[in-house]
């Protein structure tokens, strides 16, 4: 009897402990030494707002810069669709699909009727104009760190956009996730609803970087794993996660799997251009984040990002160190053909022309595979996604293009060539199956983008 009581008590404690562990998640900047203070009490240069280059700019210009920094367009636009009109699909395995909404100033279908307060409530509390609660697909838990001034500057900019009539697609969610009301409970635990608090014991760049990363760029939304309650788990901050069918890699200081081996210079170039020699180019969601957001940041802000990222405590993950030596230039060496003859034939047919048997492209640095993290990811998730969806980035250097092979090539072929590419140019060959490819296709599915490919 007594034993039983103890057992129950013990269980209770464990249960509570688990619950507590589940809900009491450290804040995004909790890792840093020193105590954060209210912005008003902070003596250093203001880490919020726009960089000094834009200090004199009008509200709209500042709002535009901040909208870029917060990368609103990424989620509020479908590939090839009209900017800010919504419709982007978040496919959440086991939960359903959530579609982003139209944030042009259209009065019926957009945010045309939002007052400043209503806009702030959406940004900080995840509350819609009609009082309904948003799903955290909208990263208001991040934006809650944004100052009112910055949020309203963004609103001012959005209201200068052409109003487009575009009704958001109906979310397809399984019960109980279709009960928006439940978000109230979730918010209690997972949305601090607290503005950014600078940390005086850190440098000014660090604080600016922190604001850009945590209040604006919401890197954690993709790069930090989520817990059972789908909340960002800062215990594993930036350790990498699978989001919308793409791997967002470890961006902690870890030398093997993270950014530890990157120089500040290559990190800045990568962030500002989406490419760094020896690390290859970004594709998929990171490619978009680069072209829609990061390229617009001033060198000063990019530097701040680097400073802040450098301070993230290393988190190990099971990714191998990337191989930075080219593969042999004969197809006969490298991967023995019998290992994956099909992969070799597909590579020879559709890939070798640009990527070469060595992995070092004779035509474009963006096509070099050597040293690319994705190629050194034994799950080959991003390799497969890139093959399926291609690359179509509009950058300062012109259009960076790789054809999409999802339409013309079978899951069998795509699995074979993904496995071959990781084996030939990466640390370790993947073992994707036809099933895996089918599921990757689903997770990243968006409206078909039938835009013509460029001829370059």
């Amino acid at each position, binding site marked *: 009897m007594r034993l039983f009581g103890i057992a129950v008590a013990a269980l209770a404690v464990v249960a509570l402990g688990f619950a507590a562990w589940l809900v009491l998640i450290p804040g995004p900047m909790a890792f840093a030494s020193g105590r954060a203070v209210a912005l008003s009490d902070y003596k250093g240069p203001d880490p919020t707002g726009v960089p000094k280059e834009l200090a004199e700019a009008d509200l709209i210009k500042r709002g535009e810069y901040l909208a870029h920094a917060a990368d609103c367009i990424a989620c509020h636009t479908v590939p090839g669709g009209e900017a800010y009109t919504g419709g982007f699909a978040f496919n959440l395995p086991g939960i359903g699909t959530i579609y982003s909404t139209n944030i042009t100033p259209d009065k019926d279908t957009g945010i045309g009727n939002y007052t400043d307060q209503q806009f702030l409530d959406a940004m900080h509390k995840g509350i819609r104009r009609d009082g309904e609660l948003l799903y955290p697909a909208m990263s208001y838990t991040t934006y809650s760190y944004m100052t009112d001034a910055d949020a309203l500057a963004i609103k001012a900019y959005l209201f200068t956009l052409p109003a487009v009539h575009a009704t958001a697609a109906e979310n397809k969610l399984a019960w109980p996730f279709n009960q928006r009301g439940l978000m109230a409970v979730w918010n209690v635990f997972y949305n601090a609803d607290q503005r950014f608090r600078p940390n005086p014991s850190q440098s000014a760049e660090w604080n600016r970087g922190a604001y850009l990363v945590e209040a604006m760029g919401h890197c954690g939304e993709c790069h930090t794993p989520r817990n059972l309650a789908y909340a960002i788990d800062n215990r594993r901050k930036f350790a990498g996660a699978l989001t919308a069918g793409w791997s967002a890699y470890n961006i902690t200081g870890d030398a093997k799997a993270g950014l530890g081996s990157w120089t500040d210079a290559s990190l800045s170039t990568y962030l500002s251009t989406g490419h760094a020699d020896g690390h290859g180019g970004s594709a998929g969601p990171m490619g978009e984040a680069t072209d829609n957001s990061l390229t617009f940041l001033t060198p000063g802000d990019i530097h701040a990002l680097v400073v802040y990222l450098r301070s993230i405590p290393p988190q190990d993950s099971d990714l191998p160190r990337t191989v930075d030596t080219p593969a042999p230039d004969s197809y006969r060496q490298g991967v023995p053909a019998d290992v994956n003859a099909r992969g070799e034939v597909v590579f020879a047919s559709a890939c070798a022309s640009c990527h070469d048997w060595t992995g070092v492209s*004779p035509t*474009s640095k963006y096509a070099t595979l050597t040293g690319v993290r994705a190629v050194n990811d034994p799950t080959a998730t991003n390799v497969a996604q890139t093959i399926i969806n291609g690359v179509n980035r509009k950058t300062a250097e012109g259009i960076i293009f790789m054809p999409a092979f999802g339409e013309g090539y079978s899951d069998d072929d795509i699995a074979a060539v993904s496995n071959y590419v990781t084996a030939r140019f990466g640390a370790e060959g993947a073992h994707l199956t036809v099933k895996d490819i089918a599921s990757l296709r689903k997770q990243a599915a968006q409206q078909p983008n039938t835009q013509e490919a460029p001829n370059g």
Partner: protein
Amino acid sequence: MLHLTVNGENRVVGDDVDPATPLLWVLRDHLGLVGAKYGCGVAQCGACTVHVDGKPVRSCQLPVGTIGSRVITTIEAIGNTPNGVKIQQAWMEAAVPQCGYCQAGQIMSATALLNRTPNPDDSDIDAAMAGNICRCGTYVRIRRAIKNAAAKSA
């Protein structure tokens, strides 16, 4: 002002040409060398293949500004190389071309193959030629012509 070494000559490309222009279009529209063909513009057909420092390269993908001092050889001059002329001969003896549009690219890829693999077997041929589409389906004869040319070299 860009300087290119094309088929052993120093060719000047005027400032009116954007350095991002793919070599293919500089050859065809500015240097009057139309042997390299446009088929897809996305490195999927091989019709635009030229040699850059001896390697087969898809000229539709190579920004002219990035070539620097690398040496370019096109179909117009590949016949001045031992394997180039052997391949051209073999192509005519086997009557390979149908419409002929892909053949300049096929010949550039085949010559590059012989340059590094004097006696290619079928898998060598597959690996080297897979990037060149022939819409007319001349593959059987291409394979035979490559083998005949190799036999001559031996």
